[in-house]
């Protein structure tokens, strides 16, 4: 068996294992089409789906969790206002975690799920709400000095939120320009930034429930990973790349000098990780992270090549990949730097 044939067999087996039979699918689709036609096709798709099959246990659990989160958010809003007095010079971890958790909850509640297609008329309103929730989060961070040891996490959340705000504005611009492909790309970048905030928030909340149990060598390695990650300034860089189009004269320097500078940073991060073997706890994640970094370098090459060829299609693909691997870097670096 050739390597390709063996890999293909593995892929088949791996995917078959998580694809249960669904013999009822044909009848549910038929029922939902019939239902849809009866109602004149004006109902929301999701509503149709739920009425046809009923809520599953998983969906019900998710809904309960969402309702509970919303209720807790409301309670928190009533009991903690203002969140942080402006004159405080230090903040307790409990207070800080409370503030971050609450603001994060508000942002998540406003994630613009409406902006998935050009006919989503609720998109502009949803974007405005999400931007305002992100801005409120940033304002609260500015009014809430981080507890000792959380300065870097604090700064990181702020940077990611600023990038998320820029991306939301780009989503709106793409929506108004009827550019679905651009809208999709920017949304991916936004998701990556929110994921970064989510990781940081989880770390803050976890620290509030108990101190870190990292050994000295693990803590040193986590700090090294964090420092390299911060140096990349991925969120800001990606927002700039995603927001730039080939025709934008103002972006000319980005495609050459900017890309080369970012590549240098990625290479330097990669070399640093290669020169410093991870503690066993981080061995696997570190390998993934290095794979992500290698992919990022290759994708940056693709961006440069697409610019040289003035090839919009190739640029789209390169940006897509770049955003994807930036998200992967954030995720894998986050697994290390936020380990406890």
């Amino acid at each position, binding site marked *: 068996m050739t390597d390709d044939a063996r890999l*293909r067999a593995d*892929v088949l*087996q791996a995917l078959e*294992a998580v694809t249960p039979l669904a013999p009822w699918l044909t009848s549910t*689709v038929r029922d939902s*089409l019939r239902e849809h036609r009866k109602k004149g096709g004006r109902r929301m798709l999701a509503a149709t789906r739920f009425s046809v099959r009923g809520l599953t246990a*998983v969906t019900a659990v998710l809904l309960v969790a969402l309702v509970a989160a919303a209720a807790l958010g409301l309670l928190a809003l009533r009991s903690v206002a203002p969140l942080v007095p402006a004159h405080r010079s230090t903040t307790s971890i409990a207070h800080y975690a409370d503030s971050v958790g609450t603001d994060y909850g508000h942002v998540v509640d406003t994630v613009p799920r409406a902006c998935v297609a050009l006919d989503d008329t609720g998109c502009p309103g949803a974007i405005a709400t999400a931007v305002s929730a992100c801005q409120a989060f940033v304002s609260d961070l500015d009014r809430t000095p981080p507890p000792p040891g959380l300065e870097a996490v604090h700064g990181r959340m702020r940077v990611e939120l600023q990038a998320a705000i820029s991306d939301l504005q780009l989503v709106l611009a793409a929506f108004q320009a009827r550019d679905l492909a651009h809208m999709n790309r920017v949304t991916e970048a936004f998701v990556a930034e929110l994921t970064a905030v989510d990781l940081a928030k989880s770390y803050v909340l976890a620290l509030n429930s108990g101190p870190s149990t990292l050994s000295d060598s693990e803590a040193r390695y986590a700090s090294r990973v964090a420092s390299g990650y911060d140096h990349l300034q991925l969120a800001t860089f990606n927002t700039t790349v995603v927001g730039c189009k080939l025709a934008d004269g103002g972006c000319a320097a980005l495609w050459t000098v900017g890309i080369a500078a970012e590549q240098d940073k990625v290479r330097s991060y990669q070399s640093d990780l290669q020169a410093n073997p991870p503690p066993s706890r981080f061995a696997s994640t570190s390998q993934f992270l290095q794979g992500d970094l290698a992919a990022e370098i290759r994708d940056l090459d693709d961006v440069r090549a697409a610019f040289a060829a003035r090839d919009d299609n190739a640029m789209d693909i390169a940006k897509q990949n770049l955003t*994807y691997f930036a998200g992967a870097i954030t995720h894998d670096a986050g697994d290390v730097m936020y380990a406890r």
Partner: protein
Amino acid sequence: MQNAAMAAKWRSDSGGEAVFTAQLEPVLQPAYRLACAMLHDPQLAEDAVQDAALKAWRKLDRLRPGAEMRPWFLGIVANECRNTRRSGWWSRVGDLIGERSVEAASDAVVAGVDVRRAIRRLDHRSRLVLVLRWYLDLPVDEVARAAGLSVHATESRLARAIRALRKELRND
């Protein structure tokens, strides 16, 4: 316009719906397998196929005369999967929940964890091309139509996906 008028007529009576469903039926299981492979969550996969069926029903006028139903519908399902992952950004968490809930099921499931993790790390288009070609065994030209790519781009995307997959698995 002719297509639009025909589609509107189809949509207005139950006979049209029956014909549409009959055409769709043979494609539903491949669509479901595609959605499972893209989302790694049977529940979300079912939802994606149902939503895609409704969208296909609405977009009938865009199905060119003589065009095949399978790549057209699979393309809609692929978009739906992409939207599912995007619109619910918590679906990253859902992804993990789905994976964990089935991981304990059997040795066969456990054995594929690394491969599925590697597949999840591919970008959307690469994953789509890989799944359509290797999992659903579609011919390259049909993969290209479903993925909205040229045949050449599809071949190149597939080669890159396989390379990336191999690299991920070596790293694992």
